[in-house]
């Protein structure tokens, strides 16, 4: 059962081939026996999962099953889950049992889904490799000496290793798309505000967005159907109609206009990745699409702009971790300031401290105009590039990452080198646009992702474009050896 897609599992449950309890137990058994190799989960919740599975089976017997009833999923450990530790990958929240559910968790519960547990992640979602997790790095099932990507690395590793059929992730600068690319998954970062951020532990509030990580575009559509929608508890959630994202997956692609930004295909791009992306574009032409070169001239500026805006917002968001209301508190503080400083010094890891300090510096007196305001102006220029391009083409395509999954420890000594990993993904978060990564081939046995970028609220189109490619190719069905 563990190698099936969500769509196949839903059909199996519907036909009575297996119960949700049987399915859930099969996943729990696999996690128990396999996850020591991948470290993809921080917390597994077998009792809760089996309880939810039994309730789902009962609902089905009484004729109250929806399309996702009884389907097990895993959640990034950034979504607050009532009664369950929600750590955000940090020592700061190692003892935090959430007293409430994030809206995303509530929605999965209401859909009758089963939660297998909480997946590993870079601390407070700050990282591109999952190596900043307090719980140790998750590993890439395609090669366990390599990173699964980050920050949603545990979700990617869990789905790629068949330790969950699909998972939630969050994407502030590429944290759904990059691990999806590294682990041969289909990941979707929706438009900013499409999915509620309530109860999703904040990193950079103007960029953060939750979304699905799955085996196929169809599965991602099923997940997004659960997750999307306006939420009174999140005033930045978008009050925009929600489609049935599974309804138009089969639309033919004849006449689809694809833009290829020349800045994404510079001479410095890894030639194997360039060839695979060009191969995928050829496949789209065979499906009836037309291709033209476009320009996103400010692409390179997305790295500096992001690494001001995100740390600035993080320094503000993470000021709440002060040892007073929740989380870690240092032993025997001698006064309030000592408590704040030691609590935060002990509770946060190195990368989180770096970003808090960069943000604190950028927002400090006298530097605001030179850093934060300048970055927000550049953000406008980056958005205008996309708006211009998307008035001429339907979707933009390019690589998700400049290279396939790198080795554990390869980029930990120099944060700037790690930041350059996000060059192709950051600009979408700055512009608030939706984007996907889908499997399009392999380089030295490691997966490569094709990034597809669409206009605001064009998730339905993106999923359609991804699905048709997956009907014509089989990259997304390839599994790591032994899985």
């Amino acid at each position: 059962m563990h190698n099936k897609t969500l769509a196949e599992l839903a059909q199996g449950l519907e036909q009575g081939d297996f119960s949700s309890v049987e399915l859930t137990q099969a996943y729990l058994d696999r996690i128990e026996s396999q996850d020591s190799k991948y470290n993809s989960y921080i917390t597994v919740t077998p009792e809760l999962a089996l309880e939810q599975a039994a309730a789902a089976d009962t609902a089905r017997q009484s004729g109250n099953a929806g399309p996702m009833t009884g389907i097990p999923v895993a959640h990034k450990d950034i979504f607050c889950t009532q009664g369950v530790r929600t750590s955000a990958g940090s020592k700061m929240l190692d003892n935090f049992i959430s007293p409430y559910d994030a809206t995303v968790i509530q929605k999965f519960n209401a859909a009758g889904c089963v939660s297998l547990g909480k997946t590993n992640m870079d601390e407070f979602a700050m990282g591109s490799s999952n190596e900043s997790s307090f719980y140790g790095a998750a590993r890439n099932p395609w090669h366990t000496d390599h990173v699964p990507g980050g920050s949603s690395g545990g979700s990617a590793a869990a789905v790629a290793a068949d330790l969950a059929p699909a998972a939630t992730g969050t994407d502030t600068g590429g944290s759904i798309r990059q691990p999806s690319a590294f682990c041969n998954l289909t990941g979707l970062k929706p438009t900013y505000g499409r999915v509620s951020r309530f109860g999703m532990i904040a990193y950079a509030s103007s960029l953060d967005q939750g979304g699905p990580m799955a085996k196929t575009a169809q599965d991602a559509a099923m997940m997004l159907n659960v997750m999307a929608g306006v939420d009174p508890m999140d005033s930045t959630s978008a009050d925009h109609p929600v489609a049935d994202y599974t309804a138009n997956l089969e639309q033919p692609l004849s006449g689809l206009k694809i833009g290829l930004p020349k800045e994404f295909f510079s001479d410095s791009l890894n030639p194997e990745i360039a060839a695979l992306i060009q191969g995928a574009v050829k496949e789209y032409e065979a499906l009836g699409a037309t291709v033209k070169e476009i320009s996103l001239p400010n692409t390179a500026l997305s790295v500096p702009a992001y690494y001001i805006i995100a740390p600035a917002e993080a320094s503000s968001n993470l000021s709440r971790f002060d040892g007073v209301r929740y989380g870690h508190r240092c032993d025997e503080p001698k006064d309030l300031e000592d408590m704040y400083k030691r609590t935060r010094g002990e509770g946060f890891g190195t990368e989180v401290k770096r970003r808090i300090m960069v943000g604190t510096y950028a927002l400090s007196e006298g530097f605001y105009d030179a850093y934060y305001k300048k970055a927000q102006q550049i953000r406008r220029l980056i958005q205008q590039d996309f708006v211009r391009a998307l008035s001429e083409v339907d979707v933009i395509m390019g690589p998700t990452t400049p290279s396939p999954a790198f080795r554990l420890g390869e980029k930990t000594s120099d944060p700037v080198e790690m930041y350059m990993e996000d060059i192709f993904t950051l600009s979408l978060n700055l512009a608030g646009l939706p984007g996907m990564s889908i499997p399009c081939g392999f380089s030295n046995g490691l997966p490569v992702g094709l990034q597809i970028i669409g206009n605001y609220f064009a998730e339905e189109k993106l999923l359609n474009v991804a699905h048709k490619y997956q009907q014509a190719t089989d990259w997304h069905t390839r599994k790591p050896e032994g899985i």
Partner: protein
Amino acid sequence: MALNRTDVEKIAHLARLQIEESDVQAYADNLSNILDLVDQMQSVDTTDVSPLAHPLDAVQRLRADVVTEENQREALQSAAPAVENGLFLVPKVIE
């Protein structure tokens, strides 16, 4: 933009972060590299470009000013390190 040890200590104080003495130099080096990276922005002319704070230029939604929340003090304080009589306890602030 190079930061020295004193700069790092000052920023860490502003952020209420205790940094080990032995780590200060490494933070100074890393933060200086990050600031060199972000200084690429300074070469761009952004005269008359309005800052983008929200990608969809959305404005705050308003709701009626009525109480909708139930009192959940006990549940919410269950995660606190120290509480007494419904209050969060911290080290003594006033002598």
